[in-house]
Structure formats: structure tokens, C-alpha cells
């Protein structure tokens, strides 16, 4: 316990807030098992997830931006024989990821309100379990606890795709599962290796230690495979379009907005602090892969006819920016990467929600079937337009800020990579505008399609607010994450001097 005081500020609130945020959805999920009636199930799930959001806002309000330690710490011994503990804590890197998760969960439940027609109880159960696991991943400061949450998420996600997915769900779900699990077993081996070297499973304890270079290389590779699959980085991305496309809307939103962030989170939390030398050694390769992802994702997007597939491939490109920022090893790059993670979570999540809305009406994801909605669904097109221009980083929207930070970071380190990523950013404009043009003006014929309902407006509005707020006034966000990243930066500098 005492060893933790160095980097962990214990929770001073009267209740263990992180545990509450993690386990309220789980409690709600268990409650669901005893309920009957579709409506009450939906309401319970919604209320559970809505309760969770103000709680996480409370974290944000009480968050101390002046410290680089982990905050709201909780500590309970779990398996003393192996020094495995239940340790929670958050810092600037994780706080917004948690907020993002708690914000998206009620939106996901709302967007599935009518879209999910069978096995509603199981669906809500999976969604709530997912929420628990995702928040748990970001809060855990113990390797094993982290790993348990990280893997526990696979099962509900697999079920979401496998049961409620599209026509090709069988292939997509199994590919998703095996791909991710394959990466994870190496993560586990790396975790054990770190444990045997340091004698602890505590993540902060393992950071910034003077491991041998060879050790770092191997541990980095094991970590990187797991995280690169999750991000997904270029050669490991093939599970993503399949899974995204086949998953139900809520599943796609969770996948795109939160699951992918776990990969980049892993790079920031594990690779950089635990294996700094290896990270720098492999940095150029990671940058190359990121740039390839940006360009490749852009070109593939240009040729898509399926809306969901297009957005899925655009995720590959966007996440390429995040990894590019991380491996630029600059403060700007990291801030940009973190903002980009948030932005991608909001924007891509919103785009998937939009596709879900139109899919419920036309039962098709093909661009042509949904084209020419400009006059039929004006409100919808308004939302869709905003999120599309935000997606290609139009100034005044959130992605612009993130990409700008990343580009500043990467240009100061590697001009060539910077140049190619600018090309990628242009491609983003090309494919998103093509999509937007088709959706708004693509067809002349009049069809009877109802415009958005109030429920749908309600769940898109918070995301609109975020897009605009972040676009014009990113300072509050940067302020919160700054201290943690500055600490990371200075620690890494110490290491190389």
C-alpha cells in the first residue's frame, strides 16, 4: 500500500467513485436478469447508464489539474499470494476516455430503442457489461485487473456482433474475436515478464525503470502486437471493417468510439513509459505504419459503396493520426493524439449513429439507397453534414484541433511523414465530401422517409455540442490532459539524457 503513495492520490470523496462508475452498469445488468417486459428492461438499462454519466462528471469536476499523479485512488488486495491488487486511479490520459464511455452508453441504448427487436434483455445486458469492462480498462492500475477487463470485454462484444449483427455476422464476429485474442495472449506473456522483473503487477510501479534494452524490445513487441490489433494499425486492420459493418449500431459505436481507443491508450500507458527505449527504437516503423494507414485508409474509403464500411475504413485513417501523434514523441503530438482519440470517438460514433438512423428507415447501408435525402430528411442531413465535415477536420470542428496538434508534433520531428499525412488529410476531405454529396443530392426521386424523431435528435445533440465546443474552444480539454503528458515527456527526456 505504502508503495502506492508515490504516484496515487487516494480518493477523498465519501464513496469509492471509480468503483461506482465501473460497477453501476454491472449492477444494472444483473438487475436486468430478473426483469420481464421489454419496456421495463429498456428503461432500467437507460436509467442505469444515465445515472453513471453525472457520476463521471463529478470525477471531472473534482479532478485536480495541478498534479500528474493518479487520482481518486482505490486499493484493495485481491490475490496477495501473487501481489495482485485491485488498484484504481485515473489521470489526464484516462479521464476523458471514461467520460466518453459514460456519455456514449446511454446514447447507444437510446439508438437501439427500436432498432433491436429480438432478445432485448440480452442486448441491454451485453451493452451494460461492455460499459463496465470499458471503464474498468481505463481505471485499472494493476496489470491483471487491466487484463481481466480488457479480455472480459471480448465476450459481450462478440455476442453483440454474433447475435444482433448483419448478414455476415458469423464471419465478422469470429474474426474479431480471434484477432483480438491472438494479440492479447502476447500481452499476457509480456505482463508476466514485466512482473517477474519488477516483482509487482502495479502498472505505475513498472513505469520508467531501467530495463535492459533487449528486454524492452521483446516486451514492446508483445505489447505492440496486442495494441496494434486493437487500434488497428495497418497490417492488422482487416478485422475492423468486417466487425464494424456487421455489428448493430450500438456495437459499431462502442467498437469505434471506445474499443479502438484502448489500443492507443495502451501505447500511451504501457509502451511509452515501460519500454521507452524500445518505443523510440521502433518509432520510425510505427510512424511508417501510421502514415500507410492514413493514406491506405483514405484510398480504400474512396471506393466504398457501403456507408458503414466507408466509416470503418475512415477509422483506420483517423486512428493512424492518433498513433502518428504518439510516436512523434512530442508533447504536441501526444496532446493531439489524445484529442484525436476523443474526437474520433465522438465523430465516428456520431456517424455510425447517423447510419443507424437511416438504416432503420431504408434497411440498406448502400450509399445509393440512402442518397438524395437533402429534401426528404433535412434535419438528418444537417446533423450528418456537421459530423462529416468534422470527420475530415474542417476548421471550427473538433477534428481540426486534434489533427493540427498531431501535425505540429510530427512536422517538428519528421517532415516527410508530416507531408504524407497532409495528403491523407486531403483524401479524408475527398471521401467524406463524396459521401456527403451523395447523401444530400445523390438522387432526384422523391421517397417517403420520415425525418428524425425527437429521441434521435436527443442522442445526437450532446455530440454536436462536443464537436463545436472542442472545435472552437479546446483549451479546457487540453488543460486537463496537459499535466500528465508533460510529466510523461519530462520522464522520457530524463531517460534519454
Amino acid at each position, binding site marked *: 500500500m505504502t508503495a502506492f503513495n508515490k504516484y496515487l492520490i487516494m480518493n477523498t470523496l465519501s464513496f469509492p467513485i471509480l468503483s461506482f462508475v465501473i460497477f453501476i452498469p454491472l449492477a444494472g445488468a444483473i438487475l436486468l436478469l430478473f426483469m420481464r417486459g421489454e419496456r421495463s428492461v429498456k428503461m432500467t438499462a437507460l436509467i442505469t447508464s444515465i445515472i453513471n454519466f453525472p457520476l463521471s462528471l463529478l470525477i471531472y469536476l473534482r479532478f485536480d489539474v495541478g498534479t500528474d499523479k493518479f487520482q481518486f485512488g482505490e486499493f484493495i488486495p*485481491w*490475490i*496477495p*499470494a*501473487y501481489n495482485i491488487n485491485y488498484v484504481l486511479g485515473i489521470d489526464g490520459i484516462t479521464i476523458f476516455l471514461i467520460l466518453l464511455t459514460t456519455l456514449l452508453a446511454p446514447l447507444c441504448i437510446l439508438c437501439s430503442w427500436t432498432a433491436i427487436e429480438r432478445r432485448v434483455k*440480452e442486448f441491454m445486458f451485453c451493452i451494460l457489461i461492455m460499459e463496465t469492462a470499458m471503464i474498468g480498462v481505463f481505471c485499472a492500475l494493476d496489470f*491483471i485487473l487491466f*487484463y*481481466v*477487463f480488457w*479480455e*472480459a470485454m*471480448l*465476450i459481450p462484444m*462478440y*455476442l453483440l456482433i*454474433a*447475435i444482433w*449483427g448483419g448478414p455476415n*455476422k*458469423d464471419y465478422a*464476429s*469470429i474474426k474479431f*474475436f*480471434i484477432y483480438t*485474442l*491472438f494479440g492479447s*495472449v*502476447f500481452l*499476457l*506473456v509480456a505482463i*508476466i*515478464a514485466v*512482473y*517477474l522483473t519488477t516483482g509487482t503487477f502495479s502498472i505505475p510501479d513498472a513505469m520508467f525503470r531501467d530495463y535492459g534494452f533487449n528486454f524492452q524490445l521483446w516486451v514492446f513487441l508483445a505489447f505492440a502486437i496486442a495494441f496494434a490489433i486493437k487500434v488497428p494499425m495497418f497490417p492488422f486492420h482487416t478485422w475492423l471493417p468486417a466487425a464494424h459493418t456487421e455489428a448493430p449500431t450500438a456495437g459499431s459505436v462502442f467498437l469505434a468510439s471506445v474499443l479502438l481507443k484502448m489500443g492507443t491508450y495502451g501505447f500511451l500507458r504501457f509502451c511509452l513509459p515501460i519500454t521507452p527505449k524500445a518505443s523510440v527504437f521502433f518509432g520510425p516503423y510505427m510512424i511508417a505504419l501510421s502514415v500507410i494507414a492514413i493514406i491506405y485508409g483514405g484510398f480504400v474509403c474512396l471506393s466504398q459503396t457501403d456507408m458503414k464500411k466507408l466509416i470503418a475504413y475512415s477509422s483506420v485513417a483517423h486512428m493512424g493520426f492518433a498513433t502518428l501523434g504518439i510516436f512523434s514523441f512530442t508533447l504536441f503530438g501526444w496532446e493531439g493524439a489524445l484529442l484525436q482519440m476523443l474526437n474520433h470517438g465522438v465523430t465516428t460514433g456520431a456517424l455510425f449513429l447517423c447510419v443507424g438512423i437511416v438504416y432503420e428507415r431504408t434497411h440498406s447501408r448502400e450509399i445509393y439507397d440512402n442518397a438524395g435525402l437533402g429534401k426528404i430528411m433535412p434535419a438528418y442531413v444537417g446533423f450528418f453534414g456537421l459530423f462529416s465535415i468534422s470527420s475530415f477536420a474542417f476548421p471550427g470542428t473538433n477534428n481540426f484541433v486534434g489533427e493540427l496538434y498531431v501535425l505540429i508534433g510530427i512536422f517538428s520531428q519528421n517532415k516527410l511523414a508530416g507531408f504524407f499525412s497532409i495528403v491523407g488529410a486531403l483524401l479524408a476531405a475527398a471521401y467524406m465530401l463524396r459521401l456527403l454529396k451523395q447523401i444530400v443530392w445523390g438522387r432526384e426521386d422523391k421517397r417517403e422517409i420520415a425525418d428524425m424523431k425527437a429521441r434521435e435528435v436527443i442522442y445526437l445533440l450532446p455530440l454536436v455540442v462536443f464537436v463545436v465546443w472542442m472545435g472552437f474552444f479546446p483549451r479546457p480539454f487540453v488543460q486537463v490532459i496537459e499535466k500528465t503528458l508533460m510529466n510523461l515527456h519530462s520522464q522520457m527526456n530524463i531517460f534519454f539524457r
Partner: protein
Amino acid sequence: MMILPELSTLLFSIVFLFISLGKKKDSAGLLARPLSIIVLGISLAGIFSGGELFSGAYRLDLFSQVFKAIIAYGFCLVIFMLDRQNEIEEAYFPEYVMFLGFSALGLMMLVSSVELISIVIALEVSSYSLYVIVPLRKGQTHIQLEASVKYLFFGAISTGIMLFGMSYIYGIARSTFLNDILRVLPGAMDQPIGVFALILALTGFFFKLSLFPMHFWAPDIYEGASNTTTTFIATVPKIGAAALLIRLTMLANASGVQFINVLIVLAAISMTFGNLVGLVQKDIKRLLAYSGIAHAGYLLMGVLALSRDGYAAAIYYITVYLFMNLACFYVLVLLSKDGRNVVIDDLVGLSKRAPLLAFTLAVGAFSLAGIPPTGGFTGKLFLFMSAFREGHLTIVIIGAVNTAISIFYYLNLVRMSYSKEAASTEPIQLTFNEKTLCYILIFLVLYMGIVPFGLLDIFRLAV
């Protein structure tokens, strides 16, 4: 009084012996469950008793008593699964239960034996009972006869090899008591004779565990025997075998590099072979047989660490293995209406027909694959850590790769029951007892995954 668990199991069998002699045989089904609960209760109560019997050939310590409790638990669960009497001819039912009891008794004696001859006797008591029940299956066909003959022959051969190895041990140590052997054998472990003797002596337990190269029987016997018999053979005897594997490898005492290397090779081949062949299986019992071969390899990782942690991890893993395997087999038992074998395609649409069964199977399969928060993950984590700590990186990586391979066929079970739509959606009716048992198995697997500390501490004390 110290051997109450054994006595109660013996009594259990004798009761059924008498029932089998009588005319009215319907009381057997009624009696089996309460009696097995009593056996379990007594075994749990006797967990902290200690002492020695038969001039030191039979030792009661925490190690043996813990194993007896686990065996009794597994035995009790199997008896509870024996509900549908559509697998065994009504007339043979009391005998069937009796032989199950004798087999459990043999295993209980096995874990307490600390002398080579009593080990052999206990092992044979357990094996012979199983040889008899393998062919007991409704509808005589050649499959179960083939299975029983194979089981008998493989069993006899492995016993022969084991005795051969034991004779070498006797030649080295000039004693059949493990205590005496422990003083002499570590000195011989750097010579071929020591390695040879110990490996051969372990063969009998490799056979029970279905570890390479003694695994050939497993798929055929699993396929041929009735579902309940397979459930028993696949779980309970492996606990006894794991106990003796641990007890005998303790003799090597960390001085045998060659010995460890042999075990590493066996573990690696066993898990790789089991998982690769498991990928193409259609019959679920065969699939679980190959999964069992792979799991024997995982288990050996804990044993070959030759450390306290490793042994505790191995005990933990075999306990989890008992529960998760029982969960999978129970679904098969319930699913197979007329005692037929279940193939993978029969699972299609299971989540609609019986959500609880599908969930039980999913928990079992995910646990076998080693995914948190199930017990299979926690157990495997302990195994990996103990092997890694002793520097056996190679086997840990092979184990990790194997985990990734094996997920495919375990996930296939879940995939079939969840994402494939069935043509017929006739629901499967479950009785209250069956539901309860499903919940208990799910709970046990998850409990061992999330709350490992209490049990693990006991296991660490035991070794």
C-alpha cells in the same frame, strides 16, 4: 476415524452393491444423490485431519485431504448429472453407480498413498471400475465395446510401463516408500537411470491425464462411452492423476534438468497436438477429448516448475478444469435426449432452444479457452507465472500460442449455439434440478475466476 472420506465412499458403493443384488432397483436413483452429498460433506469436514496409517504407507495430510474433497465434489456433481436414465440400461444402474463409487474410492486412496505398491493398488481399484462401466451404454453397438477394449488394453500397458519404472526406482532407492526414495532419487536425477525411472513411473498418470504420448485412448473412449461415463472419466480420475503427478515429481526435487526438459517436451507436444487436432473435430466429445489432451499439457506447466507456486497452480487448474469440463459435459448430457453423441451441428440454435444451456456451454468453453473473468483464465495465469518464474520461457510462449489456437474450436461451440439460426426451434425443457445444477456450475467457474484467493491459499499450504 481419520479415513472417514474413504469409508463413506466405500459405504456408498456397498449400499449400491446390495441394491444391485435385490429385485427392486428404482430406489437406486433416489438414494444416490443424498448419499453422494453425505460423502462430499464428510470429505469437506475431514480436510484438516492428519496422520499416518499402515506403517507409513498411507498418509493423511492437507494435500491428500484437499484432493479428496475435490474428488468428492466432482463425484457428487457427476452423480447429480446422472439424472436422465436414458443412457444406461435400467437393470445395470445400481452397478453403474457402485462402480463409480469404487472408482472414486480408488482415487481417494491414491492421493493418500505414499508407497509405490499402495499407489499401484489404489490406481488399479480406480481403473478397473472404469473398465467395467465403459461398455455400459444403452443400445449395444460395436463403438462402446471397442472403446472398452481399447481402454482396458491401454490401461494395462500403461500400468505395465509404470511398474517397470517403479522397479527401477526400487532398484535405485531400495525402498518402496516415497520418503526413502526422496532421500536417494534426487542424487540419481542427473543420471539417465533416474530420469528414465521417474518418467516411466509417471506414465500411469500420464495415461489417466491423457497426456502425450499416452493420449491415444482418449478420443475413442470419450466417443464410445456413454455421456455420463465420459463426464466422469474426463474429470474425476484426472484429479487423482494430477495429485500423484505432483507427489512423484516432488521426488525429483529441482535437481533434474533433463527430467524437466522431458516434461517440457511432453507438455509442448501434448498441448500443440491436442489443440491442432481439436480444430477439426465434429463430435463434441471427441473435441473435448483433444481439449483434455491439450489441458494435460497446460497442467504439466505447473508441475514442471517444480516449485511450490507451480504445484499450487496445478492444483488450482485441475480444480477449475473439473468445473469447466463438467459444465461443458453437462450441457451434452442434457442435450442428448436418447444418449446419443452430440455433434457440433446439434448445437445450432441452442441459445434459442435453451438459453441457460447455451450460457452454461459458453461459460465452460470460454473458461477452457482461458478468457477472463472465468476460472480458466486465472488458473492459466498462475500456471504461466509459475513456469515463467522458473525460467521456462519457451513453454510459456508455446502455451500462449496454443491458447490462441484453441480459441477457434472453443469459440466454435459458442458460435454454433449463438449466431447460427436453427431450422427447428423446439425448446428444451429443463427441470428445476437441472437448472440449479447449471447455475451452480456457472457460479463455480466464475467464482474461481474472480475470487481465487481463499482456495489458492489452501492449495499453497497443501503442497
